[in-house]
């Protein structure tokens, strides 16, 4: 068993080549599954909407629906295109989509593509920050807890984690608004910029802290507990014990040996919990009046704004599929024992 540097590099290379082939297979399989799934799902949105007891005209007219005659309702439905069968509505939506036209959102009175352009960056900023904060905190606190299972920091971190997991996200959101924005007045209550002003860097950062931390907090427990378990397991593993025996410094043992092994489960969990992040973002955006796309999901569902609802459903599904693909691909590289045959 020699450890010549040349051989190590070469073995890395062959591993990369093998893995690349596996990765290509994985991507191809997922795309082959994912595309028909997206097509089917978009049709399902239109089918379910047509079969649901919600009447798009009632959503459109609101209280005024009460004061319409059957004749007026028929004429309105025709003018607004509510009277076509669901498969024709879906077909015309899908063929417009193929031509790059996402349709018109009645709820926001602008093209769906503009709704995305205006709101998506805000959601990416919020979810990205929240995910980064959650992953970093999970790594740090999970490591601290996992290194000393049963110690008081571990007991505190684990219990707080379980507690936070049990609190519904909207309670966390409203609670943090009450404490930090209303009582302490450290942060603004809601929105993305001071009322009436164009967003500035400082202003956005101020407005971002509370919703991003809340969203991070809702995502934290699972990540945290997973890291803690992985670190606790890695801590007792042979490579770590060997490194410690060689007299490697404690800090280096953690960064060089414990963490790399513990990272793999974290990646899977982040990938698998992307849908949760989307759901969390919906609640947090609604409560913090964050001008993002997740809030538009609620509004479009309530007003039966089909083009927007269908586009958002597809986009969300695509994000989840892509997230799990990325997580599985990353896993291939992080852990040589894993194969992509699953």
């Amino acid at each position, binding site marked *: 068993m020699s450890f010549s540097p040349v051989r190590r590099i070469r073995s890395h290379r062959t591993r990369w080549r093998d893995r690349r082939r596996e990765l290509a297979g994985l991507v191809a399989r997922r795309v082959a599954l994912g595309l028909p799934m997206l097509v089917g799902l978009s049709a399902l949105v239109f089918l379910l909407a047509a079969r649901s007891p919600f009447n798009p005209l009632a959503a459109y007219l609101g209280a005024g629906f*009460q004061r319409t005659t059957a004749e007026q309702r028929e004429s309105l439905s025709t003018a607004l295109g509510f009277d076509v069968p669901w498969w024709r509505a879906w077909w015309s939506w899908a063929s417009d989509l193929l031509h790059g036209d996402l349709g018109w959102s009645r709820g926001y*009175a602008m093209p769906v593509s503009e709704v995305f352009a205006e*709101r998506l960056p805000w959601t990416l900023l919020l979810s990205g920050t929240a995910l980064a904060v959650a992953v970093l905190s999970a790594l740090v606190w999970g490591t*601290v807890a996992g290194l000393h299972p049963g110690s008081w920091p571990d007991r505190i971190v684990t219990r707080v984690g379980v507690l936070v997991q049990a609190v519904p996200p909207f309670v966390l959101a409203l609670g943090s608004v009450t404490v930090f*924005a209303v009582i302490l007045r450290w942060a603004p209550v*809601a929105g993305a910029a001071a009322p009436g002003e164009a967003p500035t860097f400082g202003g956005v*950062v101020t407005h971002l802290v509370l919703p991003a931390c809340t969203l991070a907090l809702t995502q934290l427990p699972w990540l945290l507990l997973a890291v803690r378990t992985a670190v606790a397991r890695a801590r007792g593993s042979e490579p770590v014990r060997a490194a410690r025996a060689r007299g490697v410094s404690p800090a280096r043992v953690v960064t060089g040996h414990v963490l790399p092994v513990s990272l793999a489960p974290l990646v899977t969990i982040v990938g698998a919990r992307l849908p949760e992040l989307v759901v969390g973002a919906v609640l947090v955006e609604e409560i913090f009046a964050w001008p993002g796309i997740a809030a538009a999901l609620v509004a479009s569902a309530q007003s039966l704004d089909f083009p927007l609802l269908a586009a958002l459903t597809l986009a969300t599904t695509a994000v989840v599929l892509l997230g799990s693909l990325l997580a599985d691909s990353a896993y291939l590289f992080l852990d040589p024992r894993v194969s992509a045959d699953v």
Partner: protein
Amino acid sequence: MNGTVPTRALLATALAPTLLLTACTDSTEADTTGTPTRIVLADAQPLGEFEPVNGYGELGVSPIFEGLLRPESSGDDALPELVPALAASAPEPNEDNTVWDVELRTDVTFSDGSALDADDVMATYSAVLDPDTASEVAGSYSMIESVTAVDDHTVRFTLNYPYYAMPARLTLGITPSEEITPGPAADSERNRAPVGTGPYVLADLSADQAVFEANPEYHGTAPEVTELVILSVPDDNTRAQRMRAGNIDGTVLPPVTAETFAHVDGSEVLPVRTAEWRGLSLPSDHPFTADPDARLAMNLGVDRDGIVENVLAGHGRPAHTPVPDVYGEAHDPEAVFAYDPDAAAELLDEAGWEEGPDGVRVRDGDRAEFTLYYLASDHLRRDLATAFAAEMEPLGIEVDIQGASWDEMGENSTQAGILLGGGDKPYDLDTQVYATLHTREADTPTYENPGDFAIPGVDEDLEEARRSLDPDERVEAYHRVQRSYVENPTYVFMAFVDHTYVAAEDDWDRGPLVLEPHAHGVSWGPWWNLAEWRR
């Protein structure tokens, strides 16, 4: 091994949010003077539906648009007077109220610089009446047969039938004729780029806020409040929290949430009156409710004061008929049902409805039991339906409440009761009562008199009032309508609701509140006449 790295990092991540938060506390604060020229309000509605053809600012209240007439209020306890806005003088009817001529002001320009003329008025009204625009409010203008220009500055409305209340239909916001495009109004670019003649223009519109600035082309006195910011904050609790944190000047809240501000320094709770009633229609094709004595007994057996107190947190008034006292002389204060459950029980006994073994009354095998539908998404209607069912139980009447969609309710309207609302456009009494109490006709909306009852004498009086040219005759006719109704009730009207707003206290002279239609939000409340606030 005590990992020094993790401990330090732990502290860093724990403190980072706190440090960031404290670093940012010096954010901009509200104007400290008592009369800020910039007002920031939070609304529950999404922004960007500023299209008069689809009903935006329909009753002449909007920062951007004006109608031919506008409401001038002396307080929310009386009907506002409709006075000329874009009209040069009061509209002139012919001798039988079938043709109305309106002369326009000649000194008005739109915010895009074009001058107002008869074409703009014709184009706006014609667009509303055009089925292809699918205007949400077209139903309110069905009396109009045609709109024509007599000359550049005179418009003529020709009606299908004599209609004394036409001025109440002349408050619709006017948009330049060049702006009007074919196709559904909901799909029009005008929703986000409105051009009007009002005191403000929409200066900026983003995902969560709309900024209005003073309109330099405005023909009236320039507003002293020069900037209005409306934020879209859908969540009731978040709006309340923003109000509490003090960074907005006002918002609209449900009654119970608004009430929590009653003792908060620096803010005031403003309930504003409406003519909006809530009550239930009764089915005619049902053995129990088809009995006039049973309908009267239910009206006597419901504690309206209790319902206002408990369900509406006191922000409402009992409703006995669809006519509230804001109609002044036309309201008959005698047309009420005294709350008397004993008399109700006696009436039912006399009519032969006797208590059965399970406590529910029975007559000839028919049970005193019916289904009451409410719109499943409307919490207030649900609570009112529940309260009504609870009031009926001790009388031996079983009311099965059920949440439903409009379609389900429409299909069963003669076999089941429906928790309804009405009085959404209150500026004349005809729209307030005609369809609600008149026998159903071919063009009667589905949910007006859905029980399909005919009250003796009421049809004739309603028609006489609509066609009459003499205001005193109209008052008399409406009194007869109310008296016939209380003798032979076909609904159970329960309450008129208030809209509740919370506003920051300031030193502005805001002028009177105005009686509100169904539409509410921060275009109404104390801000309905923001352009006329004076120091």
